[in-house]
């Protein structure tokens, strides 16, 4: 379904971003991956760029390189995020700032640059990777959950701003799956949180691909400003 599509995935070198990138490549897409680290995917249609998405100059440099590869961007997957489980009274300012930079500022900046590529073609899908944390709001997850809640709101407003250009913006709020990031959260927080899901289990990659494909589909041109939670978060 992704033949001839150009897709940008942030945070593509590991975890959910890597899984998503590999899924897109398997299904025919050309994928540009933004990540701070080196490439962890080798594929003729994968174009890795070492970008710090907390830095606007780095992002602009990345988009300048994208414009040399293609004059269109069909889908943006805002996936890059960091999660540190910290209780508010002992959270360090540095860790909070880093999460805000990557999880929010970076997403805002990348979306703005991506929208500039999409609006002229009157086509685009922006898919934000949210989290069950924004709704479950577990103790120890204040900053991460707040970032993801902000992302939900950002996505809705972005949907309104880009609607006239036929660009959609939706959020896929995932539950935990076994990745490096999940391992960064305390297992106590993680297991307590998962136990509150309607389906109290870790997500499988295909659970994510299913909704991702739905949001990215040409048929989803009338779906925007929505958040879908995996696992039955209520």
């Amino acid at each position, binding site marked *: 379904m992704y033949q001839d599509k150009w897709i940008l995935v942030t945070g593509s070198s590991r975890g959910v971003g890597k899984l998503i990138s590999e899924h897109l490549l398997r299904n025919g897409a050309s994928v540009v991956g933004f990540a701070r680290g080196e490439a962890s995917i080798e594929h003729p249609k994968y174009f890795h760029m070492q970008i710090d998405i907390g830095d606007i100059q780095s992002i602009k440099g990345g988009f300048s390189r994208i414009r040399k590869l293609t004059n269109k961007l069909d889908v943006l997957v805002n996936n890059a995020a960091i999660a540190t489980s910290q209780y508010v009274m002992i959270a360090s300012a540095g860790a909070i700032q880093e999460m805000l930079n990557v999880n929010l500022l970076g997403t805002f900046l990348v979306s703005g640059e991506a929208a*500039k590529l999409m*609006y002229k073609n009157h086509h685009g899908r922006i898919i934000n990777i949210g989290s069950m944390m924004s709704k479950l709001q577990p103790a120890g997850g204040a900053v991460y959950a707040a970032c993801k809640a902000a992302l939900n709101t950002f996505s809705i407003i972005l949907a309104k*701003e880009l609607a*006239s250009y036929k660009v959609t913006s939706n959020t896929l709020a995932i539950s935990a799956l076994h990745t490096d990031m999940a391992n960064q959260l305390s297992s106590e927080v993680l297991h307590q949180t998962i136990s509150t899901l309607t389906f109290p289990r870790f997500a499988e990659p295909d659970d994510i691909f299913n909704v991702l494909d739905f949001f990215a589909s040409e048929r989803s041109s009338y779906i925007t400003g929505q958040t879908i939670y995996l696992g039955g978060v209520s």
Partner: protein
Amino acid sequence: MLKTKDINEIIFQALNSINDERDPNEAIGVHEETCLFGENGVLDSLSLVTAIVDIESAMSEASGQDICLTDDKAMNQENSPFRTVQSLTAYIELLLSGAI
């Protein structure tokens, strides 16, 4: 260095692109005196954003120089650069010359 008429042309193209999306009887006039934004302005907020993105992108291609029309410098101007095509052209000339 781009000339005044080149900058005008870039702004006109951005306005024409907006007209392409509009109903013909809502088309905006494209000339140097066109009031862009503010009192009697022909652009709403979203159209202004579209025009700015188009102009910045076209200026970068034409001059090889990246300009930003929405930073603090623009906001701090006594008179908004976005009043008319003429005032925007003058502001872009200042940016390109490095005077501000």
